């Protein structure tokens, strides 16, 4: 390339003065600042027209079932009640959907409605159940082929499995600062008859029931688990179950769906259980694993389009259920997914995604009766959101399991933290209750 060489030699030979440098630098800076604009114009096929179609921008996470994203990609996870003061009132959308498809389930209502301010700050359209996931082959070895039905059974079985496998296969309930551990802690507390708050948003964490749940977790850790449970992220229990290192976890069906594609033999060995019972006379409950709630910020210029989209979404419930591979269930009782999902011979009776046996997911048929919102029996308020995001309940469990505090002390200390958070949000007028 002699021509190029000559140009290069000319440039090198030429003395660059400070003045030239400033001039060239200015041009480069101008070019650099213009470049993104050019790119944006190219990507939209030229300058946007004022009379063109309206655009809706949606912010959503990557789905736990990757195939769902392929279906949803033209369009998106929205955050919770802490944004209430900056969101558009959604009562019109909720009412319209309820008129067509029946009243929202209670836990959905408590997620997108603030009873203290009497306002729908978001629109909840689906949830993912959070059953127990277990490896049947391990549970068969300890005479529990159908999985555990109570927390005590689960402890006994996972401890025996750990002992039989010399520690290679362990229990999989996390104590870590991550969402799955948060949900497991709550499911256990509810099943022991306790809760963070009551229906009127009064703090109720310091109770014998919660102390009992913390004591149970400490025993579970000592007998059936190892210190790995303090270091997990949201994917760890899924990975451990599929890798054959964990015998029982609490999770949605996402790990199972992933295993179906990558490790069919493992998937065949994964089965599901209903929420485990704790204290006698207390209804066993599980936290919703994910509850899809959309908010529309007040600054949005596409509020009408956004609402239109949400109504469309509700109208196509069977699509989002199917495309999520039965990960997501609708929160209104009479959508077009109802019969297809729950009906006789429906998707939960006969999994269209080739479960073996086909009826493996039948256990989820009554998931709407045992799933509750974070914050149950009260609303998922900003205070509950902050407690969740600061991982206070898993840390409370971990403090007792690691022997740093007695269960009673761990609960008492957590109560102090929770009360401070409630007081702070009450001052902002977003949370009810007085205690």
């Amino acid at each position, binding site marked *: 390339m002699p021509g190029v060489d000559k140009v290069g030699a000319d440039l090198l030979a030429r003395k660059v003065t400070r003045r030239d440098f400033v001039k060239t630098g200015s041009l480069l800076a101008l070019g650099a600042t213009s470049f993104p604009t050019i790119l944006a114009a190219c990507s939209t096929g030229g300058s946007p027209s004022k009379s063109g179609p309206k655009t809706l921008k949606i912010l959503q996470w990557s789905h736990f079932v990757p195939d769902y994203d392929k279906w949803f990609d033209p369009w998106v996870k929205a955050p919770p009640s802490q944004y209430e003061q900056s969101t558009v009132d959604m009562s019109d959308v909720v009412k319209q959907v309820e008129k067509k498809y029946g009243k929202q389930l209670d836990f959905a209502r408590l997620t997108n409605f603030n009873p203290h301010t009497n306002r729908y700050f978001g629109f909840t359209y689906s949830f993912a159940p959070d059953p127990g996931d277990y490896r049947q082959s391990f549970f068969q070895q300890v005479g529990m082929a159908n999985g555990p039905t109570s927390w005590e059974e689960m402890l006994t079985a996972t401890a025996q499995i750990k002992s039989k496998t010399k520690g290679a296969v362990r229990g999989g309930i996390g104590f870590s600062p991550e969402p799955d551990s948060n949900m497991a802690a709550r499911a256990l507390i509810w099943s022991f008859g306790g809760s963070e708050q009551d229906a009127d948003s009064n703090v109720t964490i310091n109770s014998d029931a919660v102390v009992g749940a913390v004591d149970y977790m400490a025993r579970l850790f000592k007998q059936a688990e*190892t210190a790995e449970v303090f270091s997990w992220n949201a994917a760890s229990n899924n990975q451990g179950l599929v890798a054959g290192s964990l015998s029982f976890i609490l999770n949605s069906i996402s790990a199972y769906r992933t295993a179906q594609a990558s490790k069919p033999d493992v998937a065949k060995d994964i089965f599901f259980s209903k929420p485990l019972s704790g204290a006698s006379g207390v209804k066993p409950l599980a936290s919703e694993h994910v509850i899809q709630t959309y908010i529309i910020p007040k600054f949005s210029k596409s509020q009408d389009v956004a609402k239109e989209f949400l109504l469309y979404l509700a109208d196509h419930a069977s699509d989002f259920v199917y495309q999520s591979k039965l990960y997501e269930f609708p929160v209104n009782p009479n959508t077009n997914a109802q019969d297809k999902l729950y009906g006789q011979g429906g998707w939960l009776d006969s999994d269209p995604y080739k479960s073996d046996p086909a009826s493996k997911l039948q256990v989820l048929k009554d998931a709407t009766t045992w799933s509750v919102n974070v914050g149950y029996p009260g609303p998922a308020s900003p205070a509950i959101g902050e407690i969740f995001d600061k991982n206070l309940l898993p840390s409370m469990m971990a403090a007792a399991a690691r022997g740093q505090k007695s269960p009673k002390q761990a609960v008492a200390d957590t109560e102090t933290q929770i009360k401070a958070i409630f007081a*702070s949000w009450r001052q902002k007028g977003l949370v009810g209750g007085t205690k």
Partner: protein
Amino acid sequence: MSEPAARRTVIIDETVRVHHLLDREEVLGPLMLAPLLIYLVALVGLPLLFVFIYSFSDATTGSDTFNFVGLETFQKTIADPVFQVALRNTVVFTVIAQAVVIVLATILGFVLSANFRGKWFVRFLILLPWTTPVALSALAWLWMLDSLFSPFNWILGQVHLIDQGTPVAWLGQDSLAVASVVALQAWRTLPLAAVILMAGLTSIPPELNEQAEVDGAGFWRRFFDITMPLLAPIMMVAILFGIVATFTDMAAVYILTRGGPGDATQVLGSWSFYTGIQGGSLAQGAAIGIFMFPVLLGVCILMLRRASRTDAF
């Protein structure tokens, strides 16, 4: 006919004036500094100002209005037991990490300033961790320390130091988790310190050491009496950079342990993020962040004093 000629002259003079303007130090200097100043004001100054404003308020992430509440947010922050742990951890992690860095960086400085084959390749390898964004390197460490897939566990299993299938929970035990976070902070700040110290070592006139050697001084005598005193000022620069990088970082903890086990590795950066951004209590998150300020201010003053002394020479 004289008017058009006068106009032509004016145009030429204007060009010359611009050229002369760019040749004047008092014009060109501020002009060259302007982009940096705009960048610093927009991305450091203004956010810092907002942190101060928010910390005296009841601001949340969900509202663009707030009230000033005086010192109430600070009182709540100081009473929070996790904040106390985070404050202690931030100081302890920084001190230990930088102590490790100084020892290793001095050794590396000697190695890097020596002459050997492949010196440039070794320098390149040592600099790599510094060029990698902390989030990326933390992810790599997360994988290496994972309870299920850790290559360290695999190696320990292969040499029968642990039973296969019963992994060491690197991030699940307090002492190991703390050691892991400190190791990551030291690993990522070590290269810069090593290069700074290498530059310091090469700037020491070789005659001083040669003369001392002739006089019978051994390695340690020369190290403590000649090298260390001459290296100390530049070592201070390396330490100050390391303190800033470690004290303010939240990515290493957030990605590696998320503050766990329990709150054993919680630091000010991560707790500020959990409280202010994730939890929505922006004011308290800002107040937690403010506690980094006195240390960083002290570091800045030391750096400026060091710079002004260098100018004096």
